[in-house]
């Protein structure tokens, strides 16, 4: 298992998997598969995948600990960057195909429409995370600061779910499903922290854990 997770090929495979939704969109575009409202379809598909990949990045830490596979961390940055990539596509379809680069109209939308406001917030908060995703930036900021900064992904995930929830007319089951998954993943973190603290009180002295930076 370890060998599999640390193999360079697995990384290539994950990379290809992350590109698959885009490839499918391209295929649909060439085969008349974007429905009668292609702009809406592209907007929804890129939005869906942004949220899905955010959920996957959030699942990596719990999964590492639960199944005891710390090497899973190798994929987190890539998946996170792909979430940002699809977020960029999603935002681009909105600003280009929906607003036609009318910035004034866009700002009016962001100020007036709560679902656009939270969506925009979710997107903007991903920018510093993508920018500081390199090893160099972890060093520059220091592990602790870097980790604090990257907790912004929790806000992005919640804002993303709210954005989806406020968008639908009545079929709330899908956004609520994402909401439930994000809630579980965040509650696990709280529980894990309380658990670790309780453990630390008993087991003096608490050693500094090199993997903690990645939690």
């Amino acid at each position, binding site marked *: 298992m370890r060998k599999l997770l640390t193999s360079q090929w697995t990384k290539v495979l994950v990379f290809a998997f992350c590109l698959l939704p885009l490839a499918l969109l391209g295929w649909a575009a060439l085969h008349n598969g974007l*429905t*009668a*409202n292609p*702009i*809406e379809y592209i907007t929804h598909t890129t939005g869906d995948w942004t949220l899905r990949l955010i959920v996957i990045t959030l699942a990596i830490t719990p999964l590492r600990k639960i199944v005891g596979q710390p090497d899973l961390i190798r994929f987190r940055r890539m998946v996170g960057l792909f979430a940002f990539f699809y977020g960029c596509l999603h935002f681009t379809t909105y600003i280009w*195909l*929906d607003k*036609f680069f009318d910035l004034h109209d866009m700002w009016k*939308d962001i100020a007036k*429409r*709560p*679902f656009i406001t939270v969506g925009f917030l979710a997107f903007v908060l991903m920018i510093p995370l993508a920018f500081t995703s390199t090893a160099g930036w972890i060093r520059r900021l220091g592990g602790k600061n870097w980790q604090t900064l990257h907790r912004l992904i929790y806000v992005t995930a919640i804002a993303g779910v709210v954005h989806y929830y*406020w*968008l*639908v*007319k*009545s*079929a*709330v*089951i899908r956004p609520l499903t994402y909401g439930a998954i994000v809630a579980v993943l965040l509650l696990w973190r709280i529980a894990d922290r309380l658990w670790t603290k309780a453990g630390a009180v008993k087991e003096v002295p608490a050693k500094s854990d090199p993997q903690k930076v990645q939690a």
Partner: protein
Amino acid sequence: MLLRSQSPSDLSSADVTPRSVYLNRRKFLQAAGLAGASILAGRWLWELAEPSVAAFAGTKLTVSSKSPFSTTEKLNTYDDVTHYNNYYEFGVDKTEPAKNAGSLKTYPWTVSIEGEVKNPRKISIDEILKLAPLEERIYRHRCVEAWSIVVPWIGYSFSEILKIAQPTPKAKYVAFESFYDPREMPLAKYAGIDFPYVEGLRLDEAMNPLTLLCVGMYGETLANQDGAPVRITIPWKYGFKSAKSLIKIRLTKDEPPTTWSRLAPNEYGFYANVNPHVDHPRWSQARERRLGEFFKRDTLMFNGYSDQVASLYNGMDLKKYF
């Protein structure tokens, strides 16, 4: 024979395309489990099927006149209008109704007219088809989600039905109820709205000649996902007002509770007139995307039907009664 009880003279064989006869015959064969039946049985079924084709999807309809209400704008394609639908009983994604609505049995079909009427009655789809001359009406159709289409509907003014039913003086509103059967519509439980779907109009709105009792489009009967076999089409209101697959028309004294308005009264009003100046709380209604067009276009007051309907709302605050 039961199916011949209607006068057969109204639909001549010229009205029937071979394809639809074939399809209907096939349907009957499948339904009876007689796919391998003898020639005799096949012939009997053919006779049985022939008079019934009137109400099936894809059957040609004879249109007696073009309507002066028709727009000259470019039609959307049949493919667009049948593959991009809101019909939540068959799934909430736009492409789902086209896949799932095939299970809807649109023949035989009866619409019950009841409530505050002198002549409550049940009326069959065969009667509906010949109650008044069928007109083609090319209407703009504007969804509350800010997209729009142009469709050549077929039908006649809804007021023709009211002529038969004769509303009592107490009747002030009309409620339209759509067919609902959870067994045929398994996805409905995920839609987040209550069924059966109910919409409504004020009586004077229903009497307006633009309000269309619609039985077809593009020269033939309605596709199931577009509301077969009979729906209401109200071109100056958001699309959700135009209830599909009607089984009940009820005249009432009071404003009937309607599906979307009950779900979110702050977002969907009873009137739901197309109005670029009154936004949906969550999105703008100022512009719309005509399917097939790249750029959005401005939305028109009453969807461009002000001349016909603006007077219905004289003195009303349309921001309050949205």
